[in-house]
């Protein structure tokens, strides 16, 4: 029966090519724009570290003294060096790392100074964020404690400086200091770069990784947001009243997460007893997806574009409803004959929906091409996320599902009207 309806639908669509083309075009435009923006949304709101995103937690607390604390303020994202070092020392999580972004100038093989992005962090960083090593290995926790002059460099920098050879053991000159390369990262980038959203949310990974303790010792330059209260001649000093360090903890099970939350509460209580502040400290954990959500990684513009595109799809659908209605009712005579020959209302309804569905599939295929074109445009836009936007299999399937669903939805009302055509009247008026 379905085959027969399909045949009828194709014949009917062929009979009025202009109307058919208009419907397919309307659906294709709506689907094309919607899928372009939905793909961008899908990429931007995707899980950057699937499988681990529920075990990695951003640790936040508010340690502002009472006179700088305003009830209702947002919880600061970063910690003071004092608190970060206390948490690191306690080591209550499976793994933990405090970190900051920075920049340094290294000298290339050709003797040219190169400005590279850096990350100052701890040994746990690499296993925590699943960073694979091409050569060598990450530094060890003892190196953190010993402020070892070591570094891990990215694959790209290794290519640039050493032509891709195993550079473990080589030296990296930074000003008048030198760092020994202990590892070269493999292919690794997190997009969005959730572990530090304050220095560009999308992009390649940093090129040099240095123990935080070493970076502080060498006074390497840091970047990122720093908020201080009171007098802070050196915001990086051990006891400076400045929040600037990002802190991540890996907690393998919900029970461990609960225990860590309790530990943070106890830590805050200790601070209160120590007279640092009297407010509640707002200590808490956010897992990766909660953290991305809280930071609003999906730009407001992209959300707006998505709403616009969906509104546009709605208009295209209304358009299709009108055209389908015109098409079906024009065939009142034909429907009357079929009804008179014994076709049930249901059969007419299904036949009409099959025709709508065919329009939808055609619109989906054409819309997919438009979406591919749209994504090329998105990639050429000067946004930091543009390069990472691509259509995956799920979105490809989603395109056809959306096209089919919306065309069937658009076909419901016209099909309903068509099945209620009174056979006698339709036949007589012909």
């Amino acid at each position, binding site marked *: 029966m379905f085959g027969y309806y399909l045949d009828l639908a194709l014949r009917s669509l062929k009979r009025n090519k202009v109307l058919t083309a*208009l419907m397919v075009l309307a659906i294709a435009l709506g689907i094309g724009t919607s899928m372009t923006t939905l793909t961008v949304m899908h990429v931007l709101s995707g899980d950057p570290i699937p499988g681990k995103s529920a075990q990695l937690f951003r640790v936040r607390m508010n340690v502002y003294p009472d006179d700088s604390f305003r009830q209702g303020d947002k919880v600061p994202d970063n910690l003071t060096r004092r608190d970060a070092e206390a948490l690191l020392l306690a080591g209550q999580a499976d793994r933990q790392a405090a970190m900051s972004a920075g*920049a340094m100038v290294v000298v290339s093989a050709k003797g040219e100074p190169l400005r590279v992005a850096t990350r100052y962090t701890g040994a746990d960083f690499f296993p925590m964020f699943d960073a694979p090593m091409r050569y060598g290995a990450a530094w060890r926790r003892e190196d953190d404690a010993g402020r070892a002059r070591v570094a891990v460099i990215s694959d790209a920098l290794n290519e640039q400086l050493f032509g891709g050879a195993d550079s473990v053991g080589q030296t990296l000159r930074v000003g008048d200091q030198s760092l020994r390369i202990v590892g070269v990262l493999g292919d690794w980038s997190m997009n969005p770069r959730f572990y530090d959203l304050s220095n560009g949310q999308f992009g390649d990974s940093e090129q040099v990784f240095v123990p935080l303790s070493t970076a502080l010792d060498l006074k390497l330059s840091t970047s990122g947001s720093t908020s201080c*209260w009171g007098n*802070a001649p050196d915001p990086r000093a051990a006891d400076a009243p400045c929040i600037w360090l990002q802190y991540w903890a890996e907690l393998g099970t919900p029970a461990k997460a609960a225990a860590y939350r309790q530990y943070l509460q106890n830590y805050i209580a200790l601070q209160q007893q120590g007279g640092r502040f009297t407010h509640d400290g707002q200590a808490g954990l956010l897992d990766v997806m909660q953290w991305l959500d809280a930071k609003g990684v999906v730009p407001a513009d992209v959300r*707006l*574009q998505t709403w616009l595109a969906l509104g546009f799809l709605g208009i295209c659908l209304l358009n299709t409803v009108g*055209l389908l209605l*015109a098409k079906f009712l024009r065939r009142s005579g034909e429907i009357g004959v079929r009804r008179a020959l014994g076709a049930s209302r249901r059969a007419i309804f299904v036949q009409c929906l099959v025709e709508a569905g065919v329009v939808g599939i055609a619109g989906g295929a054409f819309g997919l091409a438009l979406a591919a074109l749209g994504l090329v445009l998105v990639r050429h836009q000067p946004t930091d996320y543009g390069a990472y936007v691509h259509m995956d299999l799920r979105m490809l399937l989603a395109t056809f599902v959306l096209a089919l669903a919306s065309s069937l939805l658009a076909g419901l009302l016209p099909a309903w009207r068509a099945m209620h055509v009174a056979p006698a009247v339709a036949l007589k008026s012909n």
Partner: protein
Amino acid sequence: MQTGLILAALRKHRLATLLIALEIALACAVLCNACFLIAHRMGLTRVDSGVDESALAVFKIDGFEAAQAGDLNARMLAGLRAVPGMQSASVVNTAPFGLPTGNAGINLDREGKRFGGVVGLYLDGPGSFEALGLRLVAGRAPQTGDFQPMVGFAPKDSQVVVSHTLAEHLWPGQDPLGKEFWSGDYHFRVIGVVAHMARPGAGEGGTGTIEWSVFVPTQPGPNLVGTYLLRAAPQDLPRVLRDAKAAIARAVPDVVIDHENSRTLGDLRERYFRSDRVMASLLVGVVAALLGVTALGIVGLASFWVQQRRRQIGIRRAIGATRGDILRYFQTENFLIVTFGIALGMLLAFALNAMLMRFYELPHLPLAYLPAGALALWGLGQVAVLGPALRAAAVPPVVATRSG
């Protein structure tokens, strides 16, 4: 005279009429809001920075130790000033549309009880005030003695110049000269007011705060080094900047020039508003596609109706209606349907605007957009229906005598 007839006919096609009207309504709502968004975005990009943008460039370097600041600033300034065509070079922390450094929350009292907002601080060295070309409307410009060394993130006690907008925000209706504000232990006293001064990283905190900026005269030193403001005649500026890069690479080879952020203010402004322009052009595309689809819908349905009514048209023609009558019939019909749509669309437009306002920083939709949107849709409807209506008018009276 035909209106009654048309309405009676439309009543027979309630569903199709409703669909077209709904489509027009949605189109009206989206059209008005999209045009408003475009105008709003383009308005943002036209903000008056208050400085001589065409004559200014920023020069930024990296890869030095803060300890060598004094010597480095002197070498850099000497190197930059030696470039032919350079009118002035000064040490600054940033420039309008440059990197947003030095945002500070300020209070209007020493105790920190009256919060004034988060403002942008220009911590700029001697010569920069004149180079920027800020237009003073009250008080005086900073003088040599006002430039204080940094202690931490700013001088401890500064004599500052604020923008008119910020002065009005902090002390509405009062004379801002001599007024004071604090940020933590840091104390600032207003000595002058300029007409316009966009903050570095303008627009942070929304359009309303785009001019919340303070010029803090600052002595270059360990915390103020590495970023320089260059001034040259506008036609020389690109060459002067290029020459400056070459000159510094020779004269101060131990630093790295940050090419990404060493640009003319025109370039920086272009880069700063790029996403707004992209969004605006995207919206223009949406509006065009929207109008196109709506027109296609009208064409499709009108063609269908014309074909369906061929006999009736023939009869009308046979009993005396002119081609013009038939043409006007379809034109009036379209006008009526579009009018229904617009009436509903205006309500929808306001609803959509209210929704957008909840999620985005947007003002109310100005009323002027509604008649403009209505005119556009009426025009669109008439253009779209013209083809089918002409075909209807061409139906010969003889059709009336044929069956089916």
